[in-house]
């Protein structure tokens, strides 16, 4: 009944097996290398464009101090524009994009739902309420070089996720469907509160509305200094939970039977996504679609394995948001578009496209989408 192969054939097969999987992984690592290169390129391009055009060679000289070959040395004005204005903004955009994309990828796996994005756990409305409350009340304190708005947004996001978490907990477990519904409920409540504040915010209405469309206009090195450590820690933790996330795509019960402490993994992943979302929203406002669309886009190339998906999503999110932000500040210069508008304008058609090609999203089949 059971045809058996020779021992030599078996050995070869084991090698082949590992080789096949590793080949696949190597191909996916190539994707990560390509995305890294893309990020570098987009970053340099972003530094060249703006009110003052600065040639790429100058930008590179400025960044790395030297560049072989002829060319003018950067003058102090160019240096200041690049180092003090454009570079922190580009890095902030990259941080925000990476944070949103990774948070989206994790939440889609956690909820096993292709429509999950960083905002389903209530973070964006919490952040909005915090930020809008500060803007309307006119509080102006600063901490670590940050103004009150990003700090309030950060705290609001964390607080909202904590409320969702407490609401969704049942007997020590965290059922993802309850969490999804709690996120929606809390989000609705907070959005009503935000609307109420906006309604009475006649004086600062423009500032509030502009913030809520998402933008990286005020990005400074202080933003980078605060955002980067959070991002690094959250990405690190998420990466070492990749195998758990993979197993959880097979269903929570199966993951548990494979040795995953499911409830702990869910709590850790919720904390990680809350942190990532809070960082992103406090630095850039509620920017939509990056967290929803980038993971899907990346999954087409990286496959479902989170060991490749998470780093690829981080890079792709960064590339996308740096590009979007560059467009936002140049397309109708000197006026600046809110970057959230650009991502939504570009993201919506893409989202419609993946809806129509859902075969590629079948690893979620039987769930949500």
């Amino acid at each position: 009944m059971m045809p058996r192969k020779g021992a030599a054939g078996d050995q070869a097969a084991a090698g082949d097996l590992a080789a096949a999987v590793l080949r696949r992984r190597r191909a996916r690592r190539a994707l990560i290398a390509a995305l890294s290169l893309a990020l570098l390129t987009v970053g340099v391009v972003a530094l060249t464009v703006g009110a003052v055009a600065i040639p790429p060679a100058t930008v590179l000289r400025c960044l790395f101090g030297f560049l072989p070959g002829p060319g003018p040395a950067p003058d102090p004005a160019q240096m200041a524009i690049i180092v003090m204005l454009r570079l922190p903004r580009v890095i902030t955009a990259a941080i925000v994009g990476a944070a949103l994309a990774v948070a989206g990828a994790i939440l889609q796996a956690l909820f096993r739902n292709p429509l999950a994005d960083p905002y389903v756990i209530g973070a964006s409305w919490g952040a909005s309420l915090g930020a809008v409350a500060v803007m309307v009340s006119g509080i102006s304190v600063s901490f670590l070089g940050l103004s009150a708005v990003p700090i309030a947004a950060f705290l609001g996001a964390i607080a909202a996720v904590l409320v969702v978490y407490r609401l969704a907990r049942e007997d020590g477990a965290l059922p993802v469907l309850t969490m999804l519904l709690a996120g929606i409920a809390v989000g609705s409540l907070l959005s009503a509160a935000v609307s109420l504040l906006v309604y009475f915010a006649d004086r600062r209405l423009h500032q509030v509305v502009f913030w809520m469309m998402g933008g990286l206009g005020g990005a400074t090195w202080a933003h980078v200094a605060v955002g980067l450590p959070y991002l690094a820690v959250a990405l690190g933790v998420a990466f070492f939970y990749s195998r758990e996330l993979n197993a959880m795509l097979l269903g929570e019960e199966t993951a548990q039977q494979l040795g995953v402490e499911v409830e702990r993994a869910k709590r850790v992943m919720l904390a990680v996504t809350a942190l990532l979302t809070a960082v992103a929203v406090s630095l850039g406002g509620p920017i939509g679609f990056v967290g929803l669309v980038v993971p899907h886009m990346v999954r087409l190339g990286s496959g479902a394995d989170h060991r490749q998906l998470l780093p690829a999503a981080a890079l792709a999110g960064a590339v996308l948001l740096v590009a979007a932000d560059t467009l936002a500040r140049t397309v109708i210069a000197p006026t600046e578009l809110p970057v959230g508008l650009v991502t939504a304008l570009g993201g919506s058609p893409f989202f419609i496209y993946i809806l129509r090609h859902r075969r590629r999203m079948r690893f979620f089949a039987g769930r949500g989408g």
Partner: protein
Amino acid sequence: MAEDARGAKDAEDAEGAGAAGQAKGAAAAGLAVELAGVTFSYRAAPALDGVSLKVPRGGFWAIVGPNGSGKTTLLRCMSRALRPQAGAVLLEGSDVMALAARDVARRLAVVPQATPGEGAEFTVAEVVLMGRQPHLGRFETEGAGDWEAVRRALEQTQTLGLADRRFEELSGGERQRAVIARALAQEPRVLLLDEPTAHLDLAYQVQVLGLLQRLNRTRGLTVLAVMHDLNLAAQYFDSFMLLARGRVCAVGAAEEVLTAANIGRAYGGDVLVSRHPVHQRPLVTLVRGAGEQGGEQAGGGPATGEGVGEAALASTTPTAATTAAATAAAPGPAPNHASAPVPAPAEGAFTVHVIGGGGAAGHLMAELCRCGWRVTAGVLNRGDSDLERAEGLGIRVVTVPPFTPVGPREHAQNLALAKAADAVVMASVPFGPANVINLEAARAALAAGRTVVLVDEAPVSGRDYVGGAAAAAHERLVQGGAVVAGSVAAALRAIERAAGGTGSWTE
């Protein structure tokens, strides 16, 4: 570097590897799984109500029972997916709820019921590799040992060729085998399976159960599988637990658990338990389901007959239940035919005596019983499939030892039964020196004014191994007024007429 880490981990896990690697002898000391009064309810109604079971290491168990009897719930409690409200599940002596998921997963693997769509984007190799999850540290990557475990699991389930295929591209059967491979890659000491053969065709059913059996025999793997197909289960598993309404109905060997009484009690239908012709394990055949009492007889046959059939069933159902209770209480193997699964009509019902042998009368007897008549038979050799069938049907039979001619005492008993019957039917039996005397019983019955029906599915000349004596006796019976029927159906019609419409045979 990775190799060193694996070496250290292996040393730490040596206790586990040793037990898994060795045959039953060393491992037989303890219990693999013990259920102690496990009680669980999803809402108000209990799904499991005080289920207790001791599974020794190296046990090969099938958990059977009707839908909703709590089989899957029990499996989920055992795998720590559900926390029992009362009682405990002990895995190798420790309460599973007190163990970490990882510690449970190193010892126990689960093959769940097929869940379409889960993990569809992964390749088979990636999914099976996930079976190594409990053996890998957080900062560790898979080493050569893990790949070897994956390869072995793939090979054992014949899925090596599917390794690079995406999960979503697989058929149901392939998917099921890949999931089994994932469980085997965990290198567990206990394997739980929820209907492992549900999506497999015949060849793979046999292959998968054969694989489980081999792993059980050679590596001492303790196996507990929820099985739907009782006959397939009976063919492979050593031990059985029958669940009904969340309680243990019966526990023991196939012969002890798969009795007509137990199955009738748990499933609520009428079944026939005979023995498999090849491996002699119990063979369960559904005679009448719980919800179709007498229904199959509607739409044909005389109206009165229907009534008899239903009445017979109704009158014997309590009897079956009583027998079941007695069987369950009595220790030791209970003979399967001790309780008649098909209602034996009371004394005084229209009685048909069957002359059979050599397997010629099995179908005839089953049909006669189905019609609701009282049936007797003789003389049959022990070991004859007709006798097994008759015993399964609860028919009174005159028997002789294997290959032994019918003696005067048996002949006298047979004559008495034939004369006591209202009709005598002779199947298309081959006649040799040992049984030619049975023709005499038919003659005596004819002489006593009974209806005699000769089922001549084949001409008697071809069945005569006594040099024409049987053909001559047959001819005399026909001369004497016996009815010749060309088929069992024709014979049943003839008896129907003789019984005056008290039967319920339908075509």
